[in-house]
């Protein structure tokens, strides 16, 4: 029963909502790219406070969810080897591979460690020169610079027993893939704020122009999302298709130049399969030629891996905004956070997990929203 109370400034939230309601005259479909935004939207019931005509379609921006099954299986294989210390962010621990997860690898004796920063993994390598230390380097443009810096440091410090299993993904090619898909219903994008903190906004005007689609760089807090929606709807109503920055406090047009330089040095663009979606051209980064010695895929023979995705899982459609999580038959029955069939049910950014935690059975939340709005301390 919280809703607007949970917004930091309920009065501002109310004003933004009123304005969105006032300007909306037709149905519009907006996609929030980032899983963090999806989580925030579902948690705070933002989609239910918006006019019925404004639909939020959840995008593929959960790096944990889109890391290819083959890469997860490789990670599990490497982590199981004696002598290896496998380091990962906590989010990857329960992501299901074909037949197990990192949690299970550890309970069977694998040395799996959770790190806060990739630099922690490098330090572990320095402290354990007799062991091979592998870091699982996944993430979007926000996480890529920290991982790039870590590989750069490994080389600079001559740490030979460190390597990285790299599966980075990039947002703009994913937007392009979504827009060229025949099923696409998206009319405007809320672009991921922290990706743009690093990359800036220069990659987006071309996409906005080519697909005649407004792109509004948006933050993650509830008020940020309302502001992003407000600006996108105003553009749509006017027939505009510009790039706007609604997250100026953390995003400059040029992004972070030092980080971008490091990315260009350590990584090179590559085609990348996205779990559940398929290969998207130029949508990933891998280590560049010069840093190839630090590539765990080269260091460890993990060639032929037969992957198997549960047939029931429809996370690919969920990730493309073609299906809402609760429309999947397994949702909440055979698939729960405790027994996840797909990564979207595990990750904090996964749409299935967000729906399960905050929107299961649909009923009470949907019914409560308008009342909560009235009851909140507004005005």
């Amino acid at each position, binding site marked *: *029963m919280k809703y607007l109370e949970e917004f930091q400034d309920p009065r501002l939230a109310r004003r933004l909502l009123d304005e969105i309601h006032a300007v909306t005259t037709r149905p519009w479909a907006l996609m929030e790219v980032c899983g963090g935004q999806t989580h925030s939207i579902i948690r*705070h019931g933002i989609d239910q406070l918006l006019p019925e005509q404004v639909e939020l379609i959840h995008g593929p921006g959960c*790096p944990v969810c889109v890391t290819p099954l083959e890469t997860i299986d490789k990670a599990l294989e490497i982590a199981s080897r004696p002598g290896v210390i496998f380091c990962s962010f906590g989010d990857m621990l329960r992501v299901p591979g074909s037949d197990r997860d990192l949690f299970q690898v550890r309970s069977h004796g694998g040395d799996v460690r959770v790190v806060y920063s990739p630099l922690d993994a490098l330090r572990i390598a320095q402290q354990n020169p007799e062991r091979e230390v592998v870091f699982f380097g996944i993430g979007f*443009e926000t996480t890529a610079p*920290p991982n790039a810096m870590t590989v750069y440091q490994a080389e600079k410090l001559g740490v030979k027993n460190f390597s990285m299993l790299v599966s980075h993904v990039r947002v703009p090619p994913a937007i392009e893939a979504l827009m060229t898909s025949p099923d696409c219903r998206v009319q405007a994008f809320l672009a991921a704020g922290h990706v743009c*903190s690093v990359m800036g906004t220069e990659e987006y005007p071309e996409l906005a122009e080519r697909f005649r689609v407004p792109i509004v760089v948006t933050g993650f807090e509830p008020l940020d999302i309302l502001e992003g929606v407000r600006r996108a709807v105003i553009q749509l109503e006017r027939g505009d298709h510009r790039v706007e920055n609604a997250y100026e406090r953390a995003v400059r047009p040029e992004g972070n130049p030092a980080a971008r330089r490091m990315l260009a040095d350590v990584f090179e663009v590559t085609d990348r399969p996205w779990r559940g979606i398929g290969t998207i051209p130029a949508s990933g980064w891998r280590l560049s030629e010069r840093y190839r010695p630090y590539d765990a895929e080269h260091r460890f023979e993990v060639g032929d891996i037969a992957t198997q995705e549960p047939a029931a899982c429809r996370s690919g459609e969920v990730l493309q905004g073609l299906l809402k999580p609760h429309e999947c038959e397994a949702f909440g029955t055979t698939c729960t956070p*405790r027994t996840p069939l797909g990564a979207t049910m595990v990750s904090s*950014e996964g749409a299935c997990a967000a729906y399960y935690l*905050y929107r299961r059975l649909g009923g009470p*939340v949907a019914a409560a929203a308008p009342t909560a709005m009235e009851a909140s301390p507004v005005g």
Partner: protein
Amino acid sequence: MCLAVPGKVLEIEDREGTRMAVVDFGGVVKEVCLEYLPDLQVGEYTIVHVGFALQRLDEESARQTLALFEGLGLLEEEFGDQWAIAAKAAGAEQPTDDAPGGDAHGGPQRDEEARA
């Protein structure tokens, strides 16, 4: 995985040629690499992702965001014991149906935000 949390720079030092800082995230103190924001000074605020300062932030925005994250239990999620969090999710009781904003501190929710 990629929550970016605002924090205040408390100390700066050079370690093996790398500019590192001690950063305070609403009481939790962590080491943070400043190589991507080399001119950041003690007392300034920055958004930090997996141990790296990525962009400056003004003090007021930083404080507001930190207060929000704390209220939602996100700081605990970000800096807490990840094995415990994963174990809890693996064996968790199902959350109650009236979950929005409900059990932000102790439940099986994994409510990190601000991802990209």
